């Protein structure tokens, strides 16, 4: 059994390269507004551990379809000889340079590739496409038409009516915005073109689904590591005994905050690498929301827990401390410790902690002072960082490799923390509490990754 090959063909500038880029997860594919960007076929083999499963071929667009069609019609052949006529055309013109694009795009088709004919459903149908479709029909290869919508107008029904006369399967596929499930669905459809191709495509889909799950797990780990680092980060400065610590407060605080911002950015880049998104461009304006100051508390209730959730989280922490007191006193407090702890914790979380960073001055045993800024103990801070990371992940994981626009994180589309189930919330509360109590980042990293993984899986 030969491995399936699919040639993505069509008129210039109808999104062939976008379809290939999205399906091959390859952002190195040149996608340009100018026609004729693709001049030679480029293969995108899908391999699993080196074993070839299928190959996508990006081809140049038709440039002289009417002339080719004219040449074929002159041949006066029967339907049984159509394919041979196309083969003769390619053979005769390959070296002449008269039809370089047509020879290039027809070669993989004549070698057995399935045809994926791409049109733009946002533009009106035109009769000049018929020559292209006739040529492809003459090759006799299994074929599928993809209606890709590049613009906002809708001419899909008009296209469907025309394409159904030439192609076995007609599907609508938004190459730039296709969700992951739609991409897999399309691959399954490729498998339906030829009976022999189905097992390979089914296997490819299965592997891609597993790979996606692994990517999610890797992203969860990257977010977990970033979160653990940010929450346990601190900055210190040694001073002589005679120095005035207050003179160094601002500089130390700025340095500390910059460290946190840098770590958060590194976390984002790590998640982008997980999804093989290498050329993401950020505009300071466009990503204003996400790049808004990490320490701007105005956004806190948007990104992190709201006031009610915050009171609950604070109350839980307080109750744990109070409960420990109850246990220590053998229950003589009649659980009063738990109740008081919960009330104090809740109130502190909601109304206290206006100042995020606190600077400690420690006296060193061998003389001198040590200024320490961080870690941040505020109850909502972990959820703010988490909310921002989750939003970035949502935007990024839904982005196709054909999408070359600036990474836009619109405020109206952001959902912050989103829905987190009770068990995960409790687990997060416990981890954040341990970090506040001084646990090292690596001690909680696995648990954090698991909790973030649960959130990503549920989204």
């Amino acid at each position, binding site marked *: 059994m030969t491995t399936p090959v699919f040639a993505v063909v069509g008129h*210039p500038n109808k999104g062939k390269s976008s379809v290939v880029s999205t399906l091959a997860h390859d952002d190195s594919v040149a996608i340009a507004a100018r*026609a004729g960007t693709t001049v030679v076929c480029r293969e995108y083999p899908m391999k699993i*551990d080196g074993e070839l499963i299928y190959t996508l071929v990006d081809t140049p667009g038709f440039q002289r379809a009417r*002339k080719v069609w*004219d040449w074929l019609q002159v041949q006066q052949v029967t339907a049984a000889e159509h394919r041979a006529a196309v083969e003769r055309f390619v053979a005769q013109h390959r070296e002449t340079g008269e039809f370089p694009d047509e020879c290039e795009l027809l070669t993989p088709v004549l070698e057995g590739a399935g045809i994926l004919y791409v049109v733009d459903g946002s*533009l009106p149908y*035109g009769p*000049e496409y018929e020559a292209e479709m006739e040529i492809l029909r003459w090759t006799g290869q299994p074929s599928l038409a993809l209606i890709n919508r590049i613009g906002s107008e809708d001419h899909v029904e008009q296209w469907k009516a025309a394409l159904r006369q030439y192609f076995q399967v007609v599907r609508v596929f938004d190459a730039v915005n296709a969700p992951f499930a739609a991409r897999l669905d399309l691959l399954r459809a490729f498998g339906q073109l030829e009976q022999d191709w189905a097992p390979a495509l089914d296997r490819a889909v299965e592997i891609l689904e597993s790979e996606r799950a692994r990517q999610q797990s890797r992203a969860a780990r990257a977010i977990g590591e970033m979160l653990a680092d940010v929450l346990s980060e601190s900055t210190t400065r040694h001073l002589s005994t005679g120095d005035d610590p207050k003179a160094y407060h601002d500089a130390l605080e700025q340095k500390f905050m910059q460290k946190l911002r840098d770590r958060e950015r590194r976390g984002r880049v790590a998640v982008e*690498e997980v999804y093989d998104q290498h050329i993401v461009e950020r505009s300071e304006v466009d990503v204003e929301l996400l790049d808004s100051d990490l320490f701007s508390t105005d956004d806190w209730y948007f990104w992190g827990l709201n006031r009610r959730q915050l009171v609950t989280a604070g109350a839980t922490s307080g109750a744990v401390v109070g409960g420990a007191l109850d246990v220590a006193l053998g229950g003589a407090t009649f659980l009063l410790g738990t109740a008081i702890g919960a009330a104090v914790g809740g109130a502190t979380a909601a109304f206290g902690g206006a100042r995020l960073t606190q600077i400690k001055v420690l006296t060193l045993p061998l003389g001198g002072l040590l200024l320490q800024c961080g870690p941040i103990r505020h109850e909502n801070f972990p959820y703010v960082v988490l909310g921002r990371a989750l939003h970035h992940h949502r935007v990024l994981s839904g982005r196709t490799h054909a999408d070359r626009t600036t990474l836009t994180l619109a405020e109206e589309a952001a959902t912050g923390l989103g829905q987190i189930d009770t068990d995960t919330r409790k687990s997060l509360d416990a981890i954040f509490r341990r970090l506040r109590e001084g646990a090292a980042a690596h001690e909680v990293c696995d648990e954090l990754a698991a909790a973030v993984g649960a959130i990503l899986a549920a989204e």
Partner: protein
Amino acid sequence: MADPMGRVPSFAQLLDLAEQLRLDETRPVAELRKRDREIGRRSVGDQRGRVLFWLSEVHEDGESAAAIANRSRHLIVAVLVLLGFGLGFAASRVVYYYDGARPVNTIEVLAVFVAAQLGLLGLTGIAMLPASVRRRLPLVGALQDGLGVLSPGRWQSALARLLPQAYRDAFSSALGRGRSHQKLFGDVQRWLVLLGSQSFGVAFHLGALSSCLYLVLFTDLAFGWSTTLALESGELHRITQLLSIPWAAWFSEAVPSVALIDATRYFRLGGGTLPGASALDSVDPASLGGWWPFCVAAMVTYGLLPRALIWAFARYRFATAVRMAFDRMPGLVDLVDRLDNPLVETNAPDAERVGVLTGTGDHRPPGELATRRCAIVNWAGLELADDSLSSAVERDFGLGAVCVHAAGGAQSLADDRALLERLTELHDQSNLAVVIMVRSWEPPILEFIDFVGELRAKLGDGAAIIVVPVALGEDGVPVAALESDHEQWRQRVDAVGDPWLSIRSLAAAVS
């Protein structure tokens, strides 16, 4: 410390892993995935074993800096052991010093080799308390920090300065890496120091015992006991009984009798060195040396054995810390992921060749036309009435259309050729311009360029050919193209390099 099955990583392998993962951070992920999966498919065993196999595979030939650092560590420990042995030997010589004038004071032996050692063991215990206790009890942290300064294990950094340059550099580099991963390597460093200290301690006790046995074997030692404190023989007997419990049942010779204790007490003043010695059998002067089995047993039991046990414990905890640091190394999870999961490749293996436009590419604004008349070509089926095209051209370009013809699209090539002949005739008759109106949203393809080229060949140089990209307005009227579409057509037209071929845009929507 690496086991033959390769499941337990050594300190050198830990350093190697840290170094290799650090190097990998700068390499492309695709390259790492390919390399690691290839190794992963050949590796077997548990996760740690597979990582160690990977490490051996990716490691370049030659001795790594980590291996040199580890050898440096062994050298330093060897120096510490020698120092400890020497110090123990010397201390024992001092304590067991006997010049015939005054016997060896057993109280001094107990103070140095039992009481002091038990005290040091207590401090070692505090130094070994886990981080969780340190976090809860701040005093423990301060004590541990203080003890750390005194620990002989700390001398390792100083001793490293005595090593040859290459060893010194490798060791410093390894320590530096440890510091940069302080949170991860903290335990490893702590147990490394403690293990060094215990090696020193064990060597100290071996040195002391060696010295003691040497003196017993090759000199004639006389033992006694003396103290300024108000300690009676009975009390000392109880203390020695207590201390002898571990060996009393099977080594009774090493338990001092009351008679021996009574007989061997001495004072500096009055009545000679050992006034009670007359109570002993005068034919058995060796009785005065009867203390030595007790001293040796006490040194072994309260000095050497606990120190050896703690050394074994420190060695075990050091190995555990190395293993845990190995398992928690940043980047290890990703590495295991790359080793264990299938390598899925979907990208093109080669770089893309992108087409470039050829021609002069110079953009010239359209000049003043020599004619006020034109023929319009509706290229590729622009779905607009001929009248609306004519009126748009007249209004925006001041050209009166003498005719409107269709070409391209659904027309056959024969139709196009016939049109070219017709346009040539019209031009020859009245020197009119040719305006080709195209669907702006469709890209300019070579078929169109061929048509323009053939038209130029027919009309000859100097005849004006104007390309007008047109968009469809509401109610079926021609409107100006979007700027991006117009730009695409402009680039293509400019690339033709025809000085009499120009591109124009409709001024505005025609109502």
